[in-house]
């Protein structure tokens, strides 16, 4: 499996280069290896049909419980065949559709990247590996939807799809991590061995919700459906591939995958069925008024996905069977119809169903393919669509909920109408555009739809081609038990058949009144404005608003504000720590206070105050000089001659430097009102008190031995009597080395700042 994926990904990398060589033939050339891969999947069928599971595993990140483990059961295989098979056709189709596009080469790259990710996603056994591919599909679809990147709406649609599915993806990740925590492994196979662990765990509901969030966003379930129609900004091959056949079904795949682990509980039934039914109906209703071929198909796809979800929610054997067959059917006809829409667009340069008609004469093959697909969609015998709809109704009826059945019926009725609008309407009646302007599209453009439609027909007439090997395996994989599937076209006259007939007739009726429906819908349009799409837009606005406000609040650009925040935080934390420490003894060293010492203290503080309030800068500098000299005096009086000397020297030099530049320093300006000043003073006072207490506390605690005792005893071993100097040049010489480095840098800096004048912005950034 891994090698298959690698092949695809390598092709993706080579595609642009390949295109530079092969030009128009690239699509065909790339289709060959993909077809080969499909063939290989086919060879797996017998083994899996007989209840086997193809597995393959290679270590990757054991520490995180991630390995390259793959598991192909029936359910996965069904997807693999669809993805690879339709993929091959899409590559050919794209070759015709994008012929001569400047980024055609890159397109193949993206689509192959997506294909590989999708194949990986459905075949992964390790949940995290599955998630890796899951995200890759989101990402590659982002690139594909935004393919017409200079169009604003394409970019918007791409982002929308990415954020919605990406958001769901993160939920999914959380869910997977929780599963790993609960089940003790990320290996799906291992989890399957004790399927009830999750269901019985306290975290079941969170896990379920997170996983469903992932599935629903990906499969465009209500209320996340809105990104799908938006994604129609993508080139048609993309829509045909991602948004009908494959990516949007990833969520369905996930539901199927996890129903043995998370399914068949009350919560599962309630949520999945409801969401599915609502989506099914909503999709159908929203589809009807559309006039753009692709949007019509998009909404009908939403409805189809809803149906699938609904069936998986019901979860009975019958429902699962229906789901499996409908999955196949839907992919066949929807893929075909999308490609047809593309072909039509390609020739008639419009997708508006109202201005399309009479194309049969110019593109008969396309028309036939479209017709066949549409029939399958509206469930006409002998097409396979009929079989699937029969099963669908059976499942709904069996579920016993009249509501669900009604919903299903309604949705299908509309589907019939849509099928007619898309599959027949554009081809019949008088041609609107001058026919000579158009002609049958090239082989590449009609091959895909033709094949898919044909398959629909074949599968309808000979259902046994697909049911026993493929669908049975898929169904068994979901149900976790060996389940035979026996499809037949004809069930005899019964309620279900009645419903089918009713569906078709009602569908025709709806089709007849489509224009009136559109006018009604147009009047109802305002309602749409409060839909989830609106919520998404508002969400984005809110984000930028909040972000903007926050930035203005925090990163306002006023240094004082920054300093104040930092100092307040420091003071608050230190104060808090003090409170934890308890009472601080204030009496330390109050014995033998000496006049001169107090006098020095007083001078230091008042000098600092003078500096703070001086109106003249040099007066302030002089006052600071006093502080400096007085501190030096303190050092002197407390046995630190080296310090005293250094302090005096540094103080003097500082004074000199100040005097040298002061002529170029701004004059004082007293900004800020008295209230601000009073606040600052108050805060400063508090901070001062905290510091004082800290010092006293430090003096109070003294855990005896100090390293300096060692210095006192060993200085002579370092050939020195001045212990401070010995520390500086020997015991702790590294400090000094670093220190002179700092000084050198400072000197370089002063020099550069004063000598290097600003110059042209060139080279700057």
């Amino acid at each position, binding site marked *: 499996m891994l090698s298959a994926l690698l092949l695809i990904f390598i092709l993706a990398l080579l595609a642009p280069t390949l295109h530079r060589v092969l030009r128009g033939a690239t699509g065909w050339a790339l289709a060959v290896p993909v077809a080969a891969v499909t063939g290989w999947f086919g060879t797996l069928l017998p083994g899996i049909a007989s209840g086997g599971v193809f597995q393959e595993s290679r270590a990757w990140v054991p520490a995180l419980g991630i390995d390259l483990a793959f598991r192909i059961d029936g359910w996965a295989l069904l997807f693999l065949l669809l993805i690879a098979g339709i993929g091959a056709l899409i590559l050919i189709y794209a070759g015709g559709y994008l012929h001569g596009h400047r980024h055609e080469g890159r397109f193949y790259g993206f689509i192959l990247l997506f294909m590989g990710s999708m194949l990986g996603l459905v075949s992964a056994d390790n949940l995290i590996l599955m998630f890796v591919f899951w995200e890759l599909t989101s990402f590659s679809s982002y690139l594909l939807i935004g393919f017409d990147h200079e169009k604003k709406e394409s970019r918007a649609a791409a982002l929308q799809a990415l954020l919605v599915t990406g958001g769901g993806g993160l939920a999914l990740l959380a869910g997977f991590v929780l599963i790993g925590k609960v089940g003790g492994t990320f290996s799906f196979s291992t989890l399957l061995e004790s399927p009830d662990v999750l269901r019985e765990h306290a975290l079941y509901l969170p896990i379920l919700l997170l996983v469903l969030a992932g599935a629903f966003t990906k499969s465009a379930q209500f209320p996340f459906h809105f990104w799908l129609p938006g994604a129609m900004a993508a080139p048609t091959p993309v829509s045909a591939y991602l948004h009908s056949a494959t990516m949007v079904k990833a969520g369905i795949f996930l539901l199927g995958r996890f129903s043995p682990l998370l399914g068949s509980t009350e919560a599962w039934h309630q949520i999945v069925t409801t969401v599915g039914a609502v989506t099914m109906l909503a999709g159908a209703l929203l589809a009807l008024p559309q006039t753009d071929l692709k949007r019509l198909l998009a909404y009908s796809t939403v409805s189809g996905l809803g149906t699938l979800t609904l069936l998986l929610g019901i979860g009975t054997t019958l429902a699962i069977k229906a789901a499996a067959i409908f999955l196949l059917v839907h992919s066949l006809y929807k893929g075909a119809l999308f490609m047809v829409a593309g072909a039509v667009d390609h020739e008639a340069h419009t997708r508006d169903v109202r201005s399309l008609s009479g194309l049969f004469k110019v593109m008969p093959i396309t028309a036939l393919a479209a017709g066949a697909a549409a029939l399958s969609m509206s469930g006409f015998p002998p097409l396979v669509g009929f079989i699937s709809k029969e099963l669908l109704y059976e499942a709904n009826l069996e579920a016993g909920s009249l509501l669900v059945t009604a919903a299903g019926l309604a949705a299908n009725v509309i589907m019939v109408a849509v099928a007619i609008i898309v599959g027949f309407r554009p081809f019949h009646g008088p041609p609107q555009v001058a026919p000579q302007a158009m002609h049958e599209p090239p082989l590449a453009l009609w091959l895909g739809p033709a094949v898919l439609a044909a398959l629909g027909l074949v599968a309808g007439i000979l259902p046994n081609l697909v049911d026993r090997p493929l669908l049975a395996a898929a169904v068994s994989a979901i149900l976790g038990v060996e389940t035979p599937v026996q499809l037949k076209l004809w069930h005899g006259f019964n309620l279900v058949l009645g419903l089918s007939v009713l569906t078709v007739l009602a569908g025709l009726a709806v089709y007849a009144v489509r224009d009136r429906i559109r006018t009604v819908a147009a009047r109802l349009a305002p309602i749409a404005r409060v839909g989830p799409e609106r919520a998404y837009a508002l969400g984005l606005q809110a984000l930028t608003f909040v972000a903007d406000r926050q930035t203005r609040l925090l990163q306002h650009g006023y240094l004082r504000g920054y300093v104040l925040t930092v100092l307040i935080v420091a003071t608050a934390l230190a104060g808090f720590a003090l409170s934890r420490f308890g009472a601080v003894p204030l009496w330390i060293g109050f014995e033998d206070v000496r006049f001169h010492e107090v006098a020095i203290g007083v001078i230091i503080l008042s000098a600092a105050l003078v500096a703070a309030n001086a109106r003249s800068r040099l007066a302030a500098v002089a006052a600071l000089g006093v502080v400096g000299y007085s501190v030096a005096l303190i050092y002197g009086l407390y046995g630190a001659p080296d310090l005293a000397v250094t302090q005096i020297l540094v103080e003097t030099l500082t004074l000199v430097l100040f005097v040298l530049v002061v002529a170029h320093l*701004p004059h004082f300006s007293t900004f800020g009102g008295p209230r601000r000043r009073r606040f600052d003073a108050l805060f400063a006072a508090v901070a001062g008190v905290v510091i004082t207490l800290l010092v006293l506390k430090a003096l109070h605690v003294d855990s005896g031995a100090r390293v300096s005792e060692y210095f006192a005893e060993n200085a002579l071993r370092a050939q020195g009597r001045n212990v401070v100097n010995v520390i500086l040049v020997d015991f702790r010489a590294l400090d000094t080395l670093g220190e002179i480095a700092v000084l050198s840098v400072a000197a370089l800096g002063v020099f550069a700042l004063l000598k290097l004048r600003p110059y042209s912005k060139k080279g700057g950034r």
Partner: protein
Amino acid sequence: METTLAIVIGGLYAISFYLMLRRSMVKLIFGLMLFSQAVNLLIFTAAGLTRAQAPIIPDGAAALPAPYADPLPQALILTAIVISFGMLAFTLALTRRAHSTLQTDDLDQLGRSERP
């Protein structure tokens, strides 16, 4: 004396904080200068004060006779003093440059590059 100095230190911190919160660039520098003085004094005091023997071994003695002023904080402070001198010199040059480019003492004029 420790208490006296502790109060002095607290006062210096307070005044330097106050100065750092002014809008005037020059006052900011003064604040930074006082701040480093205060910090050095704090290290000196927190390590405990002794009026006696400087940490210099007298001729003939083999080791420093107690009681002596703790030499380590002295070395640290010496390093700190010199480092903050370097910083201060650079800050001066920077302010001088800022003044010639911005033509103001008002720190609030410095917001521009942050508010696009």
